[in-house]
């Protein structure tokens, strides 16, 4: 399968100035992220709030400019292209935001929201806009009559369907789903996830699925990237990550997920302390202050991401240590 998206050493540092205006600091929101997404594949990105998941999505969308690093769309570097060229490329990369209430322009009717990308990218002829809008609405399970309504006339789930219809209007190759179900009721969440799944099968679109919920990620993803403080600490197939997690952070994250069994007495690996400040991340491995297996090297040297097997990469010193890492982490 072809690579749709390649991200190489993506870095985004936001400049912040102290209240006195003297010291300049940088929030290292994304700090050297690399991954590939194949055609028709879904990469799930998980991690705590503030770990850089959404920023990674926005960097790929080029809503913000990366500090360094490269982003390739079907082999073409989209990092150094002009605004005009970028506008053309936006046809192939679309986004579904977390909050369906703020993602739709409140002053536009649905017909206008859906036909705007059609007119910008000349997807269909002008006289076919109505037909295409109706087709898109039907595709996401809404009625043709809804075209003349304003966003406020819909429920959260319906609005998210409209957001998805808008995203697929340009027939994109890649969609960034930035926590698309977090703001929805559980009953509606499954409908939206199934809709995204159906659309992927039908349109062969690739997804970058950003979420907090591990269950959601497990349900929709082929590959999973676990992010911590701006870095991907573990990347692998969904089976590898969920059945054979290696990084202590991934293990703690999986362990913290509630088990729907009142009689389950599985010991939980609770993470201690707070996520460090991205302005001054810890030296060496950024996870070492919270890691129960931390060694001296962890505070001295940054670990590199290494292959454990064909479908699994991890960034941890434990796999290099003399100890049998599987034994330590088991």
């Amino acid at each position, binding site marked *: 399968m072809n690579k749709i998206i390649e991200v190489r050493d993506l870095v985004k540092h936001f400049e912040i100035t102290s209240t006195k205006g003297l010291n300049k600091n940088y929030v290292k929101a994304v700090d050297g992220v690399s991954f590939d997404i194949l055609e028709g594949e879904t990469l799930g990105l998980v991690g705590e709030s503030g770990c850089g998941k959404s920023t990674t999505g*926005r960097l790929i969308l080029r809503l913000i400019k990366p500090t360094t690093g490269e982003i390739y769309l079907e082999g073409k570097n989209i990092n150094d292209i002009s605004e005009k060229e970028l506008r053309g490329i*936006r046809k192939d990369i679309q986004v579904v935001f977390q909050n369906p209430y703020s993602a739709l*322009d409140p*002053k536009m009717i649905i017909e206008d929201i859906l036909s705007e990308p059609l007119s*910008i990218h000349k997807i269909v002829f002008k006289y076919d806009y109505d037909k295409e809008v109706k087709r898109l609405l039907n595709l996401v399970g809404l009625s043709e009559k809804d075209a003349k309504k*304003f966003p406020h006339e819909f429920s959260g789930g319906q609005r998210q369907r409209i*957001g998805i219809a808008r995203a697929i209007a*340009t027939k994109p190759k890649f969609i960034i789903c930035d926590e698309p179900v977090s703001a929805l009721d559980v009953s509606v969440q499954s409908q939206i996830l199934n809709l995204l799944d159906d659309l992927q099968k039908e349109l062969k679109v690739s997804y970058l699925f950003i979420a907090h919920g591990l269950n959601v990620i497990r349900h929709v993803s082929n590959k999973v990237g676990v992010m911590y403080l701006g870095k991907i600490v573990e990347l692998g197939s969904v089976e590898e990550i969920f059945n054979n997690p290696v990084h202590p952070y991934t293990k703690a994250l999986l362990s913290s997920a509630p088990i729907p069994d009142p009689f389950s007495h599985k010991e939980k690996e609770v993470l201690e302390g707070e996520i460090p400040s991205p302005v001054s991340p810890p030296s060496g491995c950024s996870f070492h202050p919270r890691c129960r297996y931390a060694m001296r090297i962890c505070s001295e040297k940054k670990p590199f991401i290494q292959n454990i097997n064909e479908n699994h990469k991890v960034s941890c010193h434990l796999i290099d240590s003399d100890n049998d890492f599987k034994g330590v982490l088991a």
Partner: protein
Amino acid sequence: MINRFKFASKKVLLSVLIFLIFVYVTVLLCTIPTDFTITFENGKATPSHIGVLIIKDTNEKFISLLKLDLGRTGKDERSLNYLVTSIMKNSVFLLAGGIILAVLLGVSKGIIDSKRGSTSESSLKVLGTIIPISLPDILVIALLQRLAVFLNNHGIEIFKVGGGGSINHVLLPIIALSILPACYIARITSMAIDNCYQQDFIKVAVGKGCSSYRVLWNHVMRNAIPSIIDSFPTITSIIIGNLLMVEKLFSYPGLTQSLLNFYSHNDRDGVIANIILIGIIYFILDATFNMLKWLIVKPLKEESI
């Protein structure tokens, strides 16, 4: 539709009622003689004029006003209705010009001042708006007059420093009247635009491939306009408040100038007529802005409910 009609009728009736109360109170206040006093003797209050007569006078004047008769001048017994056709026309022209210029300048400056999605803010642009707001009207007028004198001395006779009668006379008063409201509109516009740029639907619009021009006009301004229209009633108050100073210093033959003349001649009917005509202008402007709000802002407020 019927509900809308009922709502509109209620609004109109309420405005008419408020206007009639305003007229009655104006007439009553102007009917009270300037030498009116109340003396207290042995714990008893004695007014210098009989209250019932004042009320009777007020009622008679009020009824004549309802018959659209503004009265007659005290000096030459001329019908005051001439105020409507000549003096009021001048003030309306000045106010309309001032408001239109204020909106055009204010919205343009607001767009320039706004960050438009960028993280850096130009303090200079904001200061350029805030400083004129803090300047006293009299200073602005004096500066404009100096500018006009300077231009006239150099053979550029576009602006007339005072008086009325031609378009050249009205240019400077319009500019003077529009500067303060324009700065106010500019602040509101720039804040509304910056607020819109933080919304997800703007990021979606950029993600759709909209050009920055399209994002600004199709999405941002469409959502910022209600906030700008919301500020118009304040603009009306500012602009009518400044009218007195502008007409006086530019010797412009308008309603407030005429009001001062009648007041100095102690002409009750003239003062009442002027105040009511200024009130009519205020109510018409307010009704116009309310109508705009009703058409544009109300649907948006319903959305947020």
